[in-house]
Every structure is written in C-alpha cells, then in structure tokens.
C-alpha cells in the first residue's frame, strides 16, 4: 500500500481521537542485559486508543524496549532496567508492584505463534483465564472465549472446532489465536512483537486489519521490521537506532517529512 493511502486512513483516525491522555508513559528508560546497554534513555508517551509503532533495524533495541513495558525483560537472567514506566499513572517498576499482575494488564503477542500444543483452540484462548479467576474475578468462560475470538476476527473460522488441537490451524490463524488469548485477559495495552514476521502476505494482511480495528478497545504498541506495515496500522511511530529513540512523530509525519536525517536515511532505504 502506498504511503499516501495510509495517510488517508490515518487522517480520519487522528481527528476522531484528538489528544487522548497517555495510557503509558516511559521516562528515561535504560535497559541492560548484564553489561550490554540495549536501550538508552528512552522517553515516550503511549496514548490511549492509538496504535504506536516502533521501527528500526535489527538489534536496535526495539523488542527489548517493548518487553520493558510489561516487565518481560526481567525474565531473562542478568537483565534489568533504569528509569520509570507508568501505566495509567502508576509506576509498574515501583517496589511492591508484582510483575505478574502487570502482565495481566499489558498483554503480549510474540513474533512466532506460541499456541500451546497440548491444548484445544478453546483451551488456548482460556489459558490465562484461570489466573484471573485465581485473583477473584468472576465471568463466564465460554462468553469470554467467544468474545476474544470475535475481537481477533477468528471466531467464524474456528467456531465449529473449538475442541480441536490449536496446531491444526494455519500460522496466521495461530497468530490470531495468540492475539485472542491475550485479548481474553481484557488487557488495557496490547504489545505486538513483530506479529507478522513469520506469516505469509495474506495472513499478514488479516493481522494488520485486525490491529487497526483493535485500537477502539485497547492501546496497541507494535514492533515491526516492516515500514509499510507501520505506515498502514499505526498512529504514531518511533524510530530506534543503536538503542536510542531517534524520533517519535505522528506516523504520517515520520514517513513524509522526518525531522531527523537518520530517520530519513532509514525510511528511504539507505541503511538498515
């Protein structure tokens, strides 16, 4: 899709969602793996009901940054961060905040589909719900599963075989299943880590369309290798290079009149 089409699409979204309050706010964030300084002094506001895209070449720290937003970063031995990340005004790294409960509010979908192979389709979508029930939430599992599958635009394809193995689905369906599994938790923020990197073009298109729909109900942050994808689905885009955030602009601006020469070099294909 040419960039101008994407702009038309985004223009409508921008006016409908004028200056929303930031859902997440990152200030002075540094992320490390032992001595390796992977993310350097990044500050970013992530507005509610918007799609924020993060682009940049391999190894620029964009995935690491994404993983600090739901405290997945620290599950790797020797990994730690400095700085603050606020979710709805609350610091998720404050002492006494449980990383596990942060992840219930900030969902995540990975590069490769990670359907649980021993579970049915229904079982996969409901996989996280036991956790919610354990903390005292009450809800109808069947309803939640159906709603999540509908939001992930997968319901019509799987409604007749909810008890079949999730591995019978195609790669693209599995990835939407993973999105459904994350949505079933009803997170406020959904993090997508290169969700279409392992998918064919048709599946990619479906996932992209889905991302665009999702922002009405959830704040989305998407890391992507693919600049056209960022242009198509996002409202604001951040460009990362060597662990630093070079530029954060409304998507239409970043791709048409980048402020930084490095951004321009990257989006015009001169490196990366």
């Amino acid at each position, binding site marked *: 899709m040419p960039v101008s089409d994407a702009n038309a699409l985004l223009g409508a979204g921008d006016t409908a969602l004028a200056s929303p309050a930031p859902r997440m706010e990152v200030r002075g964030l540094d992320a490390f793996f032992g001595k390796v300084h992977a993310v350097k002094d990044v500050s970013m506001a992530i507005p509610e009901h918007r799609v924020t895209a993060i682009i940049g070449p391999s190894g620029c720290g964009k995935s690491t940054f994404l993983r600090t937003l*739901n405290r*997945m970063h620290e*599950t790797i031995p020797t990994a730690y961060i400095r700085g603050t990340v606020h979710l709805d005004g609350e610091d998720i790294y404050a002492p006494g905040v449980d990383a*596990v*409960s942060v*992840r*219930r509010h900030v*969902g*995540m979908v*990975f590069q*490769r589909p*990670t359907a*649980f*192979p*021993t*579970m049915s389709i229904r079982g996969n979508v409901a*996989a*996280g719900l*036991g*956790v*919610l029930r354990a903390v005292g939430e009450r809800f109808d599992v069947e309803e939640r599963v159906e709603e999540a599958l509908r939001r992930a635009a997968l319901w019509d394809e799987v409604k007749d075989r909810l008890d079949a*193995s999730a*591995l*019978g689905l195609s790669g693209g369906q599995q990835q939407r299943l*993973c999105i459904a*599994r*994350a949505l079933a*938790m009803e997170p406020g923020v959904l993090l997508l880590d290169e969700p279409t990197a392992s998918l064919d073009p048709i599946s990619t298109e479906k996932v992209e369309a889905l991302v665009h729909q999702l922002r009405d109900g959830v704040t989305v942050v998407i890391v992507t290798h693919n600049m056209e994808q960022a242009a198509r689905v996002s409202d604001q885009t951040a460009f990362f290079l060597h662990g630093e955030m070079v530029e954060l602009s409304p998507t239409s601006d970043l791709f048409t009149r980048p402020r930084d020469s490095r951004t321009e070099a990257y989006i015009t294909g001169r490196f990366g």
Partner: protein
Amino acid sequence: MVDEVRAGASGEAENTPTEPPRAGIAIHGGGAGDRIYSVVITVFALAVPALLLLIFAVVTNAAWPALKTFGFGFLTSSDWDPVNDVYGAAPALYGTLVSSFLALIIATPLALGVAIFLSEFAPPWLRRPVAFLVDLLAAIPSVVYGLWGIFVLIPILRSYVMPFLRDTLHLGATPFFSGPAYGPSMLAAGVILAIMILPYISAVSREVLMAVPRSQREAALALGATRWEMLWGAAIPFARSGIAGGVILGLGRALGETMAVTMVIGNRQEIAASLLAPGYTMASLIANQFTEATSDLNLSALMAVGFVLFVVTLIVNAGARWLVWRTSREAGI
C-alpha cells in the same frame, strides 16, 4: 573422499578404486566406497534386531516343553515343586508387576520433583553438582544396592516404616499392610527399585523440561502466569510425552532388575496381598534356581519364566509407547 582414504588406509576396503582425478565437481565419483559403506552399516543396523529375534527364538524353544506341559496354568498356578516336577510362575509374575509398579509410584513424583527443581528453580551453581549426584545413583552396582538394602533399608523399614504404616496410620486394617513385619518384603523391593530407577526418570524429565522452548514459557508468563502456573500450564504439558518416555525407561529397568531385588524381596513362592509380606519376582526366580535346576522340565520351566518376563516387558513397553504416541499425536507434536 575422506571416507575412502580412511577405509583404504585401514585396509577394510581393498576393492575401493583409486581416487578419481579431481576435475571440477565430482558428480559420479566415489560410488564404490558409498556402496561398501552402505552395505556395512546396513549389516550393523540389521544385526541388532536379528539378535533380538534370535534370543527370542532360543528362549521360546527352550521354554516350549514347560509351556506345553502346563499350558496357561503356568501363569496362574502358585506351585513350584522341583521334587514333583510341577511348576507355576504366578507369584513371580505377580511380584514382578507389583514391585515394579510400586517402584514407579514412589519414584515418579520424586524424580519429577528433582527434575523440576533442577531445570526451573535451582540456582546455576547448584544445578550441575546435584544433577551429577542424582545421575550417579545409576552408576551404583546392583549388588551394592542389595547389600545396602539388607543392612540399612530393611532394618529401617522393619523398625520404623512398617509399624508406622500398619499401626500409626492404621493401614493394617487394609489387606495391603497387614501381617507381621519381617523386613524382606515386596515393600523393600519396591523402595530399592524406586531408588534405582529414579535417576533414569529424573535425567530424562530434566532434559525434556530444559528443551521446552523459551517461547512457550514466555507465552505463559506474558499471560500473567506465575512461574509455578507457567510450569504446570505450559512447560510440563509441552514435555509430557518426553516425561512419559522417561517413566517407561524406568519401568523397563524395574521389570528386569534382578540382584538387588533378589536380596531384599524374601523369595517366597506365594502371592500375598500385603506389601509387608515377602514375595518373588521372575528375575529373582531365574537367578536363584538356575544352578539347582535338576530335571529337564525344571530347566525348561525357568526358561518359560524368562519367556514370560520377555513378553511382559515387551507388552508393557509397547503399551506405554502407544500411550505416548497417542497423546503426542492428539497434541500434534
């Protein structure tokens, strides 16, 4: 080419033609060497199943007189009377199955616990030494286990464990823990077997748990699972067919184990419901009586016990493998 040179140097393949001149990419060279190589390895590969069939044939042949004489009654009769030449292997068959399953019941949770601790929770500095020591249990000779069983395990069982099970927990009211506590018993055999098979189950479970992809673990963690929920919700289900494989390996070891069991089980030709009572296993029966077998029928009866042990091991292994295959096929992995 390198293979040819090596084969020629060791004198094993004198028919190998001299190396063709190296002209560009050899697309038709080395044919003879490849053929010889493939014939040799095919022979090796077929030799093992052939050996298995040969052993099976010899055992069956030697067991035939006894099987013909006693028929199916060989499996149901408890008489083992060399004087009158009447033989029945029911107590030994029963003892083999019960002691092995008892061992599995004791060893599986322990081994799984060890594997989970080592793969998920142990600090790195503790992981290697503990894994090494657990694996070392498999290196202890069977007869040493037997001695330890006689001098350490049985006195402990007789003085503390058996009275505790029977009287303190009042399990003596059930047939399974009733009667006097002599010491040498089915329980002693089950415990010693459990210790012996624990390293196998634990090593296999540990390896398959460590092989669970990080992506599966992260998927569970990202849903807000604790480490414990991640373990039971994602890692163990993913590894379950491998863990079942480890349990089968342990069961196979337990069914055939001879020396240690013979030393602690009490060797009595009688089926008793109580685990405190002595019993017998097929392997012990053969080991104990082979040197004293006088008549041809007695020898044949022992061969028949070997035959039954062979078949039982085969059935248990095939059944367990089928179970693994079915669950993994359902899961599509």
